[in-house]
């Protein structure tokens, strides 16, 4: 549905996006993850035809955004970082203007606007001026604007930025609902958002793609071994010895101790689920099993490790560069 090939964007001497490539399949939600200034917005603006790329190619819904911009735009809905609202217009006026310029046929236009307002829950604000809406409503009107012409592709630039927690949850649910009929790219710098809403993630840093994968695979890829957290009430006895004897376990480290309850981090060989054996061993020893859960590397950690790895390489390379300059 969306294909990006070797996209590069330079502003004068500054390179905002460098050699970015990825694909998004129909009906998929792709998360675009990166710190502020990583090139997320630039990439999205190129995909929506707002600005051309310096190099590379982008195909949206079967149309090249540079060669057939009008056809590509007809099939794209875009919510920029700040919803593009006209403050003087009422929500209804605004949506009917957008529907007109996005080519919604006049026959079903009123119904379509009503349906979209229902879906984004802004019907009660229909006659309010856009400039007088709260941040949450603005964002929803922005979303309504993006889906009004029922586009194949939805591009959302930080759709939950500035919303309160309840609104964030609602927006995420709405985005998930939309995923059935639309292919979605959403950008964010909030990591849990990606693991909650997206099927695949593109991590971008300093204009370059650092990783493309599913959130689960990313987690797995960066995890050398499986780690379990086990909390045992062994009445003062040290359980680490018997835990270490469970087949598959490679290492046991005591991590915390609260009264009689002792927590252990149990590492095991990759791909081997040792939870049943651990539980059986603890229970058969007559101890109390208080907690047993897999410890996963969160996306935060993955993200940090991916982006700082890059930074380390950069600093390692720097002295060489300086020497060359001197």
């Amino acid at each position, binding site marked *: 549905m969306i294909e990006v090939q070797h996209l590069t964007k330079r502003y004068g001497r500054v390179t905002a996006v460098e050699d970015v490539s990825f694909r998004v399949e129909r009906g998929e939600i792709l998360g675009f993850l990166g710190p502020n200034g990583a090139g997320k917005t630039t990439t999205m603006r190129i995909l929506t035809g707002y600005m051309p790329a310096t190099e590379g190619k982008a195909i949206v819904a079967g149309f090249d955004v540079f060669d057939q911009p009008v056809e590509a735009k007809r099939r794209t809905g875009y919510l920029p970082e700040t919803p593009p*609202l006209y403050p003087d217009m009422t929500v209804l006026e605004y949506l009917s203007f957008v529907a007109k*310029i996005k080519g919604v046929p006049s026959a079903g236009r009123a119904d379509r606007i009503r349906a979209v307002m229902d879906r984004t829950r802004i019907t009660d604000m229909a006659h309010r001026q856009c400039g007088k809406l709260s941040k949450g409503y603005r964002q929803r009107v922005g979303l309504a604007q993006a889906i009004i012409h029922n586009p194949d592709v939805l591009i959302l630039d930080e759709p939950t930025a500035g919303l309160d927690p309840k609104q964030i949850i609602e927006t995420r649910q709405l985005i998930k609902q939309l995923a059935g009929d639309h292919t979605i790219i959403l950008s964010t710098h909030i990591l849990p958002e990606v693991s909650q809403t997206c099927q695949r993630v593109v991590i971008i840093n300093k204009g370059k793609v650092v990783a493309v994968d599913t959130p689960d695979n990313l987690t797995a890829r960066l995890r050398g071994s499986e780690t379990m957290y086990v909390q045992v009430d062994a009445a003062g006895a040290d359980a680490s010895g018997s835990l270490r004897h469970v087949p598959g376990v490679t290492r046991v480290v005591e991590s915390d101790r609260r009264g009689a309850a002792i927590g252990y981090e149990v590492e095991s060989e990759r791909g081997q689920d040792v939870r049943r054996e651990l539980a059986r061993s603890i229970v058969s020893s007559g101890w109390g099993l208080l907690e047993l859960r897999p410890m996963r590397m969160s996306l935060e950690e993955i993200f940090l490790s991916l982006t700082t790895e890059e930074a380390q390489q950069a600093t390692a390379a720097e002295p060489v560069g300086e020497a060359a300059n001197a």
Partner: protein
Amino acid sequence: MRNILAIAHKELKSYFSGPIAYIAIGIWALLYGYFFIAILQYFVRTSMQMGQFGAQQQAVNVNQMLIRPLLQNVTIMILFTLPMVTMRTYSEEKRSGTIELLLTSPLTDFEIVMGKFLGAMALYGIMLLVTCIHIGLLFIYGSPEWRPIVTAYLGVLLLGGCFVSLGLFISSLTKNQIVAGMITFAVFLLFWIITWIGSFSGPTVDKLTQYLSIIDHLDDFTKGVIDTSHVIYYLSFITFGLFLTVKSVDTERWRG
């Protein structure tokens, strides 16, 4: 065409949902009313004098003595009011980010520019309608000829088109509508006084400045003459202004 009209409609509505349309029309009506009274008084005095000195046979021409100078003074009003109309058309969209909506909608740059042009022209048309009231009064108390009035209005409309297209272009260059307004005003003023250097700088410069002067081309229209060379001049000026605007919007994309 549907897209152009949608944008033109939106533009016209946005003038009226803010103070701009009311202020522009208000200033316009005030200035025009003042000009009307001033020229009418002069006209009445002249015709009375002519009556006293026994020039009864030669009736004083209302068209020539009243309507023509009146419509020529419209150029001064354009100088002050049209920058207000055009200054925000692009700069405001750029500042508020709504330009992102327009540029990512299935519209061509030409459709956007044309829609904005027609929107501003519609407001200008409404301003011209105000002047029809005064002219209408003359028809009640006198018997002016209507044909030169029609050609004069055609000229004034085309003249306004030139200024609007120029104003659109200037507005597309900046995010700041005050800057756009000031530059537009300065450029309009320059076009208004461009012939001043002509008479002292030799025949070539004289001819050149006269040709460039948007206002000089209006002269024949107010006399009741539709000279195609002037029509073509105005139309090509408008086209060039719109062309520059389209290019400016396009360049903005490349620069980002």
